[in-house]
């Protein structure tokens, strides 16, 4: 069975402080820490592009798993902020990471639901074609599209990239999956003329109502109860939305992961950033991942430790 063999992450060293924006947006530090949950945002350097961040994550993956590089059959990049519209970022990466020319490479255009979708797509692609190893990269640097004067977005988003190796010797298996789309709400989170726009209330209502139903459907499909799950990793939209989900689903706080204080919401990278930390946590065997955002789109899955 295929599953996750390893996760590598790259968070750029640059930081943008939210504390310096308190006066501009008439907010205090407790609002930043207790409500938004972000004190500073990870920020790529201006001359660093999407493929550079993604390559850094890939390099970290291969530093620890060099033997895998020649065996990579597929490379999938989840992004909506590529270096350019053409070519796709995965093609740039395939060359720069010196992956085999037989390696399939394609991008997936999804936002915060992209990691969970990506795992399912890559696993299915490998199985359908009798292939054994692939890498899923997430890299969506929103600093490229943020309006610095927009309170509803500038305090939230950070830059990061992750690389997840899918193969036949997994430490985590993933499935079943659930998916969904509310395309009638596309306007709630969109990018026009190179600038991100977010209707916070619409996105909040969507997440607060759709995700709990989706988690219930997922647990039902997996024949699990909430109590069977050791930890829930929701997309880290904000501290407020994660806590709202925990409350509405009825989850104990210690089962719900939350960590965006020093990075911000890193879009499709937020789930693998947290999932990586749980791989070596012996008290966690069964997890639920749930991503939701641009589309509006959502996807959830169960992850179980192997062995």
């Amino acid at each position, binding site marked *: 069975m295929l599953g996750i063999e390893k996760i590598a992450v790259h968070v750029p060293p640059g930081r943008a402080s939210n504390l310096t924006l308190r006066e501009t947006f008439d907010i205090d530090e407790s*609002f930043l820490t207790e*409500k*938004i949950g972000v004190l500073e945002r990870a920020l790529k350097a201006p001359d660093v592009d999407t493929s550079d961040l993604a390559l850094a994550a890939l390099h970290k993956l291969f530093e620890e798993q060099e033997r895998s590089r020649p065996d990579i059959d597929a490379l999938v990049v989840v992004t909506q902020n590529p270096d350019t519209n053409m070519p796709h970022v995965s093609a740039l990466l395939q060359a720069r990471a010196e992956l085999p020319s037989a390696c399939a490479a394609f991008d997936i255009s999804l936002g915060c639901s992209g990691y969970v979708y990506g795992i399912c797509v890559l696993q299915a692609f490998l199985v359908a074609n009798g292939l054994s190893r692939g890498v899923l990269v997430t890299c969506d640097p929103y600093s490229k599209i943020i309006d610095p004067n927009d309170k509803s977005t500038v305090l939230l988003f950070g830059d990061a990239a992750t690389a997840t190796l899918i193969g036949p010797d997994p430490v985590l298996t993933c499935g079943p999956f659930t998916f969904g789309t509310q395309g009638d709400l596309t306007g709630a989170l969109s990018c026009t003329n190179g600038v991100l726009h977010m*209707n*916070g*209330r*619409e996105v*909040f*209502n969507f997440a*607060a*109502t759709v995700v709990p139903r989706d988690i219930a459907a997922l647990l039902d499909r997996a024949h699990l109860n909430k109590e069977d799950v050791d930890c829930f990793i929701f997309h880290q939209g*904000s501290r*407020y939305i994660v806590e*709202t989900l925990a409350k509405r689903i009825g989850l104990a706080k210690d089962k719900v992961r939350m960590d965006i204080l020093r990075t911000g919401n890193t879009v499709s990278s937020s789930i693998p950033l947290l999932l990586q930390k749980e791989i070596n946590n012996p008290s966690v065997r069964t997890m639920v991942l749930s991503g939701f955002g641009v589309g509006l789109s959502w996807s959830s899955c169960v992850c179980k430790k192997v062995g």
Partner: protein
Amino acid sequence: MVQIKTLADLIAGLDVVPDMSRFDSDKTFRDNGIDSLDVMTVFLAVEENYGIKISEDESLRINSPAQLLSAINARI
């Protein structure tokens, strides 16, 4: 017709007001200690509880529990 006490009870149950003994429906949400994120929780609870929808445009004009009560009663 929804009474202000009913709405106040609904808001109290959301645990978003630091001190309900000082709750004043005519004061702004902010002056009642309800910040912009908690306002979203209040609106969602109202929409779910009364089966109504308050548009984005109208929500931007509603700044106090009393104004929210008027919006509810205009719909039910």
